[in-house]
C-alpha cells in the first residue's frame, strides 16, 4: 500500500534480472531520521488453531529461556534458523467470546471472526475489521517518506473449499481512511505483482539497458497518467456510492503512478535486487473435487504456497533492507485454511481438517498440527534470521530496529459455540510470538517462553508497537506484555 504524493526520488542501480549488491545512501540511515534509526514492524499470520497445550506440539512445556535443542515440533524451525535468542513465545493467551460480544472479543462463531479481532484488537461482530490493523497503525508512525507505507502480502490466493470464496477470510489488514470509512485491504498474493510493485522503477546500470528501461518506464507512466486522469474525471460524474468506489480505484492508480518513477535504492551492500520470481504458480482447484479423486496426493487446493511465501519473505526482507517500506503484513495462510499440505509436508490432508482430527486422530493428528505450525514458523524464522544478518550503514543489524509478531488464528480449548472443552474453535490457550530487538526486545539475548495466561493476544502486538515507538495501542485492548521488553 503506497501513499500518494511521493517525496523522495527513486533510484536503483544494479544489473537487470540478477542479484547484485548495490551501493548505500546515507539518507537511509540514522542521520536522516534525527539520529534514530528507522523502526520496522512486521505482522505474520497463520490461518488455523494451535494451542499452548503440550499435546499441540507448539509451545515448550516449561516457561523460561528457549532451548534451541529442545523445542516442540512446531518451533523447531526457529532453532534451525538460530533465532531462539531473539524470539519469544507467549502462551496461554485468550480472547473473550460471547454472544453479546465483549470489548476485544468475538461472537461465539469462531471462523471468520477471531483473526479480525487479533489484527485490530477491536470486538468483532460482522464481516469487516472495525479499526486499524496493527500494520496500518504502525505505518502511520513509521512510514516516514518511504515509498510504500506498508506491504500487504499473502501466500494463499484461494479459499479452496466448496463453491465459496472464503469471504473476508483472506484479509487481515484494514485502515480508516481520510473520510473516516474503514477500508479492508486484501493482500497481494501474486509473487509477480508483489515483485513488480516493489521494483518496477528499477533501472539497470548497463547504459544500453538503462536507456531501454527508462523508455519503458516513461511509457508506462504516461499510460497510467492518462488512466489516472480519466478515473479522476469520472468520480464527479458518478452517483455517491459509485463515486466512492471509483475514488478508491483512483487512489490505487495514483499510488501506482508514484511507483512508476526511477527507483532509488540505498547505497548499501545489503540492498540487493532480488531475482524476478517469474510467472506465478497456477491457482489450485477446490478440494474434494471428486472427478479427480478425494485424496490429497495431487495439486488440488494448492497454489505452491511454499514458493509464494518464500518470494514474499524475500521481498519483505529486501523492502526493509532497502528502506522501500518499514511495515509489512504477511498472511501466510487464510483464516480457516483449507490449503492441501501434502505437497509441502507429505501429509494427505488440508490444514483445517488436521485441526479437526481427520488425519488419524490422537498424537498422529497433533504431530501433524505441529508440523503445519512449523511450516509457517519456518518463514518467520527465516525472515528474522535474515534481518539479523543484514546490516545498515552503521553496522547495526536491521533486527535491532525491528519487531516481528506472529499470530495463529486460534488456540485450543473451550468452544463457546458448542460447549466443547477441547476444541480448535477456541480462542483460549493461544500462542503468539514476538521477535526482533527493537526498543529493548531481547536486549539480554535470550528468547523466552512466557506465561500469558489471562492476557489478550493483541497485547503482544501492543508490545511490538511500543517497541518500535508507536504511541498508541490497538483497538479495545489496553497494554502489553512487559516481560517481553526485558
Amino acid at each position, binding site marked *: 500500500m503506497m501513499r500518494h504524493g511521493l517525496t523522495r526520488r527513486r533510484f536503483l542501480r544494479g544489473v537487470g534480472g540478477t542479484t547484485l549488491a548495490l551501493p548505500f545512501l546515507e539518507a537511509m540511515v540514522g542521520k536522516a531520521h534525527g539520529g534514530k534509526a528507522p523502526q520496522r514492524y512486521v505482522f505474520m499470520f497463520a490461518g488455523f488453531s494451535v494451542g499452548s497445550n503440550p499435546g499441540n506440539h507448539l509451545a515448550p512445556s516449561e516457561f523460561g529461556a528457549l532451548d534451541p535443542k529442545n523445542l516442540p515440533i512446531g518451533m523447531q524451525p526457529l532453532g534451525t534458523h538460530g533465532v531462539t535468542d531473539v524470539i519469544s513465545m507467549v502462551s496461554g493467551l485468550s480472547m473473550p467470546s460471547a454472544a453479546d460480544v465483549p470489548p476485544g472479543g468475538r461472537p461465539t462463531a469462531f471462523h471468520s471472526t477471531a483473526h479480525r479481532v487479533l489484527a485490530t484488537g477491536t470486538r468483532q461482530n460482522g464481516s469487516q475489521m472495525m479499526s486499524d490493523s496493527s500494520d496500518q497503525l504502525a505505518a502511520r508512525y513509521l512510514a516516514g517518506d518511504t515509498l510504500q507505507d506498508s506491504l500487504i502480502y499473502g501466500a494463499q490466493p484461494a479459499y479452496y473449499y466448496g*463453491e465459496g470464496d472464503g469471504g473476508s477470510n483472506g484479509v487481515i489488514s484494514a485502515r480508516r481512511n481520510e473520510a473516516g470509512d474503514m477500508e479492508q485491504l486484501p493482500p497481494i498474493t501474486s509473487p509477480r505483482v508483489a515483485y513488480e510493485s516493489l521494483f518496477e522503477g528499477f533501472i539497470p546500470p548497463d547504459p544500453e539497458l538503462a536507456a531501454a528501461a527508462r523508455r519503458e518506464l516513461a*511509457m508506462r507512466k504516461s499510460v497510467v497518467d492518462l488512466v489516472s486522469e480519466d478515473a479522476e474525471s*469520472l468520480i464527479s460524474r458518478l452517483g455517491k456510492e459509485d463515486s466512492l468506489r471509483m475514488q478508491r480505484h483512483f487512489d490505487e492508480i495514483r499510488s501506482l503512478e508514484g511507483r512508476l518513477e526511477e527507483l532509488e535504492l540505498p547505497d548499501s551492500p545489503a540492498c540487493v535486487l532480488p531475482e524476478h520470481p517469474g510467472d506465478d504458480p497456477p*491457482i489450485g482447484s477446490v478440494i474434494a*473435487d471428486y*472427478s479427480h479423486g478425494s485424496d490429497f496426493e495431487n495439486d488440488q487446493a494448492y497454489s505452491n504456497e511454499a514458493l509464494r511465501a518464500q518470494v514474499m519473505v524475500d521481498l519483505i526482507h529486501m523492502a526493509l533492507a532497502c528502506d522501500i517500506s518499514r511495515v509489512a503484513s504477511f498472511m501466510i495462510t487464510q483464516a480457516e485454511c483449507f490449503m492441501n499440505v501434502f505437497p509441502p509436508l507429505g501429509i494427505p490432508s488440508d490444514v483445517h481438517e488436521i485441526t479437526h482430527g481427520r488425519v488419524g486422530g490422537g498424537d498422529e493428528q497433533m504431530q501433524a498440527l505441529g508440523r503445519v505450525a512449523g511450516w509457517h514458523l519456518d518463514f518467520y524464522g527465516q525472515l528474522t534470521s535474515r534481518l539479523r544478518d543484514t546490516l545498515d550503514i552503521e553496522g547495526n543489524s536491521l533486527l535491532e530496529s525491528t519487531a516481528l509478531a506472529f499470530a495463529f488464528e486460534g488456540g485450543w480449548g473451550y468452544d463457546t459455540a458448542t460447549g*466443547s472443552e477441547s476444541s480448535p474453535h477456541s480462542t483460549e490457550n493461544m500462542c503468539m510470538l514476538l521477535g526482533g530487538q527493537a526498543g529493548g526486545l531481547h536486549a539480554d539475548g535470550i528468547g523466552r517462553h512466557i506465561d500469558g495466561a489471562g492476557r489478550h493476544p493483541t497485547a503482544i502486538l501492543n508490545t511490538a508497537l511500543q517497541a518500535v515507538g508507536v504511541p498508541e495501542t490497538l483497538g479495545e485492548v489496553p497494554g502489553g506484555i512487559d516481560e517481553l521488553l526485558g
Partner: protein
Amino acid sequence: MALLLSAGCYSGFSASGADGEDSVGATDSGAEGGESGTGDGTGEDPPIPEGDAAEVGVSGLRRLSITEYERTVADLTGLMPEAVGELLPIDNLTPFDNDYTTQTPSEPLVKGLELLSGDIAEAVVADAQLRDALLPCEPTGVDDAACFEEFLSSFGRRALRRPLTGEELTRYGILLEHGVEAGEFDAAVAAALRMFLQHPELVYRVEIGEEVEGQPGVFRLGAYEVATRLSFFLAGTTPAPWLLDAAEAGDLDSREGIAAAASQLLEGDEGRTAIGRFHGLWLGYHQLAEEGLSGAMLGETQALIERNIFDERQPWSELLTATETYVTAELAEHYGIPEPDGGEGWVSYEESGRGGLLSHGSFLSVGVKFGDTSPTQRGLLVRTRLFCQEIPLPADDLMVDVDEPPGADPDACKTERYYMMNEPACSSCHQLMDPIGFGLEQYDASGALRTEEPDKPECEITGDGDFVGVGAFNGPKELGDMAVESGLVEACASRMLYRYATGHFELDEHDEALIERVLEDQDGTFELFGFVEAYVSSEAFRHRRELQGEGE
C-alpha cells in the same frame, strides 16, 4: 422474493407477493440525443409512468469479473489472455461472480491490471496477424498521427464501449511519442493497448445516464450503456461492433430494438456460453475441471441447456424432467446407463431412476462435506438455489459446530449420524434439508449410483427422501418432477437470472416488482427467450436507480 425460513424454519410456502405494477408504459424514446460519451441519455424522453418507474432497480458500478475480462480482451484483440486468474484477485461469489456490492478496488487489482495490460499489449503487437487486425490503416511511418488516431478511434470505441471524444483522441494521441522514440509505430499501438486494457471504463461498467424528470434518482441510460448491459448479460463479454453500431444508429432507443438485439445475442454462440455459465454459477458446479470425466459432466449439462432452452425453447423447468441426456461412453458407463452410438450422444435414461439436470454429475458434485455427500448440504442447495429459500445458520444457543462431522460414532450409518433432523432443537431446520439430501443419497458426489455407503456394506442407502411441504420422493428424477409440479422453481429461476443480469444478489421492492410483473406476463412460466424479451423491453432495463439516502 426469497423466503427466509427463520428461527422456526417453518416449511410452508407462500407465493411471492406480486406487489409490482403490472402495466408497461408505452414510452419508446426517440433517437439518441447525444452523439457520444458515457451516459449520453437523451434528456428528451417524457417521464416514465409511475408503474414503470417502480420497477427500476438500484444498480452500481460493476467491475468485470475475471471471466468477463478474459472474454472482453479476447474479443477486442483476438488473444485469449493467460494468467488473468493468477494476476487479478479472485472474484467473490454470491453465488454469481459479478456482484458489484462485493467488489472492492485494491492495490492487487490495480497493479494486476497494469501488468496484465502490458503482457497483452506486447503479445498482440508481436503477432503480425493480431496486430494487423487491430490497425484500420497501414502507417506511413513511425509518426503517422492520422493512422494512430484512426486506430485510437476504432479500438477505443470498442474498448470503452462508446465513441471517443475529440478531446480524448487528442490526449491519447501523445502516446504516439513512444512509438517515435522507440522508432516503431507498434510501440505506440502497444502503449495505447496498455491504456485501454486498464482503463476504468473498460474495467468497470460505467452507467450514468440522464435523470428522468419527475423521478428523482431514476436515470435514463444512453444507448451505449444499454448495449453494454445487453452484451454482458447475454453474451458475457463486451459489445460486438454490430451492437455498438446499433447503439449509434439509434436502434436501441426503442424497446423493440433492444429486444431484437437481445434475441440476436442469445442466438449466437456467446449467448449459449453465457447462459451455461450462469447455470454453473447458480447451481454451484462451475468449478468442476473441464477435463476428463468432470469435463464430460459439464458437457452433458451444457448440451441439455442448449437443446431445451435454445433449440427447443422449452420452459426452463423442462431441464429438471428431461428423459434423455448427452453423455460420452465413459460417462454413460460411470452412470450405468446405455452408451451412446459413436462415442457420445443422446441416450434415454429409460428406467434407470435418473431424469433431468438433477441427475447430472455436475449438480450432484455440489454439496459435499467431510469427504462424502452431505444430506444437509444437498438439501440446503436445493432449498436455497432451486427454491430461493433462505435457511439460517444454527443459532448460537444451539451450540453447533458446523465444522465437525455429525454424530458421535463415525462408524455409524449416515442415517444415524445425521440425527439432527430428529433432534427437537435442530429438526425445524434440518427437516427441511436432510430428508431432501437423503433422497439423493443413492448418487455419490460424482453422480455414480450406489446402494450402500462407502466401506460400509452394512449401511444400505434407500434413496428415500422427503421434501417437507411438498411430498416424498426417491432419487433425482422424482425430485425434479416434484419440484416442477410445485410451481415454485420457475419463480426462483427467473429471480436468479435477474440477479445475474443486474449484478446484485439482494433484491428490493423495485426488483421484485419487475420480476413479478414479467413472470405474470409469461403466465408464471420461465422460458428464457420470453423472460429476456420481457425484461429487456421493460423501462427497468434502460433505466437505473440511484440510492437517494435514508429511506431508499
